[in-house]
């Protein structure tokens, strides 16, 4: 620690004596992800996404060198704010990438309002109200959110899988609320049922799911599970060990690579599980294939997953947006980033998963994928593409004022009686 402080002091001294022209040749970018706690594995993949985008731009944008400073949180809003404040107020970053988890995003958005000269770009946090209600003018989300990610899944479960009654198991915070809303809204509109009494909300970081598994009802067709990271691995392996037999429907991060690529015994349980999200492992498209190849080139054998997770993808897209906009304004942040944010607002670019642009509240409109877990050719579990929903917006094509009448996401919205 002392040594570290010494280095910081030294660096500060060097910066102080260096000529201003030299100091302005670098732009400091903060990268915040959950490198601790239940979402540590997703957090590490998020940082990989940032590194991929920086590598692609050769760590330079708008003629300036980009210096990445990373921070860590543990998925709690308090820890995200602590890390963001440290990056913004002590390290002096001008662009922030992050955070990863839903409720962290809500907290960082509120903090962004107090720092109008810093540009905040999301990581993968995907709670609805980060941009839908009371958005911050300097918070951008190119990675879409949890309800958008569910596009097509409710219809698929009802029409193709013929499920009529489901139970819900999810973590108890804003992102799973958003996902449950995104899944149940179309499912219940078609006539599906998900009783409020058959929805189980567990705290993040819960280890022991045995009693929750015992409490799951028998008289349902499937269980919709929206858990992430270690929570998903714990549940899926305990469900398999308990001999659970009901089919599952997965939230976007419940059966993604951070879970499928883990060492837990979950194979039998997850194969055949439908899900939806912003990526699909097997999408047959040159842009996606190039992205996967680059990921494998950089991280195969160095802790990376068999295929990039949606966290690597989300952080990559958000970082790439920042770098593209910096190129447009030639790295000029002397006006407190005003020009940069104007460039970001009108940015439209090709991502590995198709065209991305922003709505008036700075939330992305992008393509979504309907997937199903299968065993890949080399034995890895992957999400096979079943369908693509083109250009999904946060309000699903409904007018903004109309969409607000659906009410904020919560444990009981939609009621689905």
């Amino acid at each position, binding site marked *: 620690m002392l040594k570290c402080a010494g280095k910081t002091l030294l660096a500060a001294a060097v910066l102080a004596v260096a000529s201003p022209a030299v100091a302005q040749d670098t732009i400091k970018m903060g990268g915040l992800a959950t490198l601790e706690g239940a979402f540590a*594995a997703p957090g590490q993949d998020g940082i990989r996404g940032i590194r991929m985008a920086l590598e692609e731009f050769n760590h330079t944008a708008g003629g300036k060198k980009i210096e990445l400073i990373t921070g860590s949180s543990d998925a709690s809003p308090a820890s995200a704010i602590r890390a963001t404040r440290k990056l913004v107020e002590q390290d002096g970053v001008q662009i922030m990438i992050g955070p990863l988890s839903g409720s962290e995003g809500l907290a960082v958005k509120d903090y962004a309002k107090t720092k109008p000269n810093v540009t905040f770009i999301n990581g993968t946090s995907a709670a609805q109200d980060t941009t839908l209600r009371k958005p911050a003018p300097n918070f951008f989300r190119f990675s879409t959110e949890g309800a958008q990610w569910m596009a097509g899944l409710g219809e698929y479960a009802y029409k193709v899988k013929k499920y009529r009654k489901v139970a819900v198991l999810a973590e108890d915070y804003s992102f799973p609320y958003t996902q449950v809303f995104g899944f149940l809204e179309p499912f219940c509109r078609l006539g599906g049922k998900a009783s409020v009494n058959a929805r189980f909300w567990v705290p993040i970081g819960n*280890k*022991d799911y045995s009693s929750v598994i015992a409490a799951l009802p028998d008289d349902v067709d499937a269980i919709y599970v929206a858990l992430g990271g270690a929570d998903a691995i714990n549940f899926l392996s305990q469900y398999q*060990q308990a001999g659970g037999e009901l089919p599952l429907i997965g939230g976007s991060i419940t059966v993604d690579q951070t879970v499928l690529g883990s060492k837990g015994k979950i194979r039998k349980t997850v194969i055949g599980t439908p899900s939806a999200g912003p990526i699909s492992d097997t999408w047959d498209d040159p842009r996606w294939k190039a992205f996967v190849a680059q990921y494998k080139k950089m991280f195969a054998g160095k802790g990376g997953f068999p295929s990039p997770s949606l966290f690597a993808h989300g952080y990559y897209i958000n970082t790439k947006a920042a770098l593209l906009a910096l190129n447009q304004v030639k790295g000029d942040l002397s006006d407190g980033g005003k020009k940069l944010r104007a460039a970001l607002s009108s940015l439209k670019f090709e991502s590995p998963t198709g065209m991305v642009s922003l709505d008036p509240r700075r939330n992305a409109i992008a393509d979504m994928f309907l997937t199903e877990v299968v065993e890949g050719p080399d034995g890895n579990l992957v999400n096979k593409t079943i369908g693509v929903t083109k250009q999904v917006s946060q309000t699903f094509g409904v007018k903004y004022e109309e969409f607000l009448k659906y009410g904020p996401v919560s444990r009981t919205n939609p009621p689905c009686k």
Partner: protein
Amino acid sequence: MRKPMQRRTILILGIVLFAAALLWLVFAVWPDWLIDAIGRKKTFVNTLLNGITLGGLYFLVASGFTLVFGLMRNVNLAHGSMYLLGGYIGYEVAEATGSWFFGLAVAFLAIAVSGILLQVAIFRRMEGDELRQTLVTIGISIIAADLMLATWTGTTYQFDTPDGLYGAIVLPVISVVKSSGAPVFIKYPMYRLTVLGVAVVVGIGLWLFLNRTRIGMMIRAGVNDREMLAASGVNVHFVFALVFAIGAGLAGFAGVVGGTALSIAPGEDIRYLLASLVVVIVGGLGSVSGAAIGALLIGLAEQFGLAYFPTYGVVLTFLIMVGVLAIRPQGIMGTR
């Protein structure tokens, strides 16, 4: 006031009635009114088993904790770190050798040795100064947590359950009778029953060791009067180191057993330290049988809370603690 004999008869009668009711709840096919009142039988029986098996795991951790306290009056707040370190070491060894049982043995031995080192190198220097020892253990637990985070990162580790213990077994307990007349039996994970079995074996082993061996006699004598034991020619330092080794080793052992049932990750050290503290406060500091009763109570409270009122479940544990402190401050089996 009733006479003691009468009170005892009433107590025994109560226990017999309670046990009979419990047996009926487990083995009978539930009538509809009961299902309407408290839900399905499957939920109840599974939660009951979960509570008992979790209690078994808590007992493994807390027995070492209470043993060390009983003899040395040293509240070892680094006990949770030993649990976590045991889990990590066991994981590394099991991964490297492919044998879960070998990992378990190495975790026990490694943490037992680290316990001896702690006792010889640190605690002996401040013998009789309990407050200082306790503060030092807090320091050790903080340093250990950071070192473990640096070494094993924040990722969650899960053991491969040994093949023979994997999967669910069908219990001879009928959950419901289908309309066709076919009974549906309750399934339960094999591994969790094994955890319970291991806890019972360790509990009986400890009891026999303390009550039927010469060293056990020395330990019990030391609990009552350390100075007298030293004066009668026993090498107290040897006894102390041995007890510390067993207590720490049990924590490491529990790290592997518990890490396989659930998983290991940073923060588990605090969780199990807190669980051990609550267990020994409820059961009575220094008493192994108290630790067993406390562990069972806390395990059941946690699981029933999680199954029947998940949002407020955690309160139940602390209500039990408050109740015990109010009525019997020394703990259920504790002596003043």
